[in-house]
């Protein structure tokens, strides 16, 4: 049957920025079916014994508190045994009511973050309404799934997504695997190389109905413990005045915790550990 004009119009109507790019400008996507071909032959034949030397982002923690969720990330990116960056930021606002943190290959992760931010804003402008939290979480999963060919070659990206579900009135947390599998997490979750140590800390520090201030302190302390045992995670740096990046998400929206507050929180943790005079 001949394709009618109405069918064509309906088929090309999309509110998704990623779909639009796939059709019109596939070269702009950070991933895609053809991206494996674009990699040099050396990278394709490389095996796990010789990983590609690119910066990797490390630990992200997220936890719920009374009235919302919070996400925090350290400031280090590593390339093998070298510190690639001390200043990198790995937690970003996705839109007004959600944030995402990324671990894994930094270059691809930053591009996926940017694409995801535009994706949400694009939908909002085209449709005139915000995407539901589940919808946002599914879109992010699809993007991670799109990166699977790259992940198979060692360039994996693993995000953590947190947002405030306005109809339900609760903060929610989602984790992902490299195939784009989406899992809703309860209470708290961590990703990245230092995540095991951070999760251990959170199990002891987290409790229901934390206040926002307490939650910030718990997240910073969990990152401190991760940095203590994982060489790829950076701790608070009082010399360069570098503190973790922390975002809170509640009914009033996503806000970055100011450095001034984080300096005080990190200072208290370092002080209490010094006073205790114990092997951590």
């Amino acid at each position, binding site marked *: 049957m001949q394709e009618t004009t109405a069918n064509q119009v309906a088929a090309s109507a999309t509110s998704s920025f990623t779909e639009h790019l796939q059709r019109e400008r596939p070269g702009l996507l950070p991933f895609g079916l053809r991206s494996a071909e674009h990699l040099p032959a050396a990278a394709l034949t490389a095996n796990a014994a010789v990983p590609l030397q690119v910066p990797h982002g490390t630990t992200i923690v997220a936890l719920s508190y009374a009235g919302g969720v919070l996400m925090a990330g350290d400031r280090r990116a590593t390339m093998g045994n070298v510190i690639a960056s001390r200043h990198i930021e790995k937690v970003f606002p996705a839109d007004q009511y959600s944030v995402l943190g990324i671990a894994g290959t930094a270059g691809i992760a930053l591009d996926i973050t940017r694409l995801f931010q535009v994706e949400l804003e694009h939908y909002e*402008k085209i449709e*005139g309404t915000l995407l539901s939290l589940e919808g946002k979480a599914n879109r992010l999963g699809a993007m991670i799934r799109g990166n699977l060919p790259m992940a198979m070659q060692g360039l994996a990206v693993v995000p953590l997504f947190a947002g405030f579900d306005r109809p339900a009135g609760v903060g929610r947390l989602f984790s992902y695997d490299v195939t784009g599998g989406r899992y809703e997490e309860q209470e708290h979750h961590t990703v990245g190389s230092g995540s095991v140590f951070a999760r251990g800390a959170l199990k002891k520090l987290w409790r229901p109905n934390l206040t926002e201030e307490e939650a910030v302190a718990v997240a910073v302390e969990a990152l401190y413990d991760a940095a203590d045992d994982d060489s790829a995670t950076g701790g608070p740096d009082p010399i360069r005045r570098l503190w973790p990046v922390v975002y809170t998400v509640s009914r009033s929206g996503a806000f970055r915790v100011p450095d001034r507050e984080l300096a005080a929180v990190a200072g208290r943790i370092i002080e209490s550990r010094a006073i205790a005079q114990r092997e951590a």
Partner: protein
Amino acid sequence: MTQQFYVSPEQLMKDRADFARKGIARGRSVVVISCRDGIALVAENPSPSLHKIGEIYDKIAFAAVGKYNEFESLRQAGVRYADVRGYSYDREDVTARGLASVYAQSLGAVFTAEQKPFEVELAVAEVGASPEEDHLYRLTFDGSIADEKGFIVMGGQADKVSESVGAGWRGELDFAAAIRLAQAGLVADKETTTLPASAVEVAVLDRGSESSRGTRRAFRRLEDADIVALLAEED
């Protein structure tokens, strides 16, 4: 075989232009005003969901009159253009001038090449750091583009509305005064003296959205309650 009548190119273009003009004049007016607080966009529109005013990008808004399906497809194309440009270059590289010129080219192409011209008139507004840096572009159905100062009135009885708005416009108006002025203009061609808040669609581009609301997205749609409150401020 039937012989086609010869129609001179002048006549052909004139017929198309008259057709488009008639379609645009049938609708209701839209007013865009640049003022001290930013840019106010006011449209007479009884529908709360079929918008005539829309957000394109951080500092850029869109307003249109004419056929809904035609300007809605142009609005969506504008959002796509701006988002692709901002994603591939940088957010600050998206400008109203670039967008207006793309609109002018598409409208011009449709006017000459398609079966019928678009029966729409568009305004593209960009808010700057000061009123002198605001940009207002008017685009008509044939692809003509005009850089306007102060305010734009389009659609319906645009002459009457424009006269009324022009008489009261000053650069130092705040949003409340600018929206009141636009409202007064919109009833200039009618029997009544006021429009209910539900019959108008109002949005603004805030001049200092970074400092006042902590976001670079300057576009803000006003709810009916906001409009009533804003208009009641002075009385």
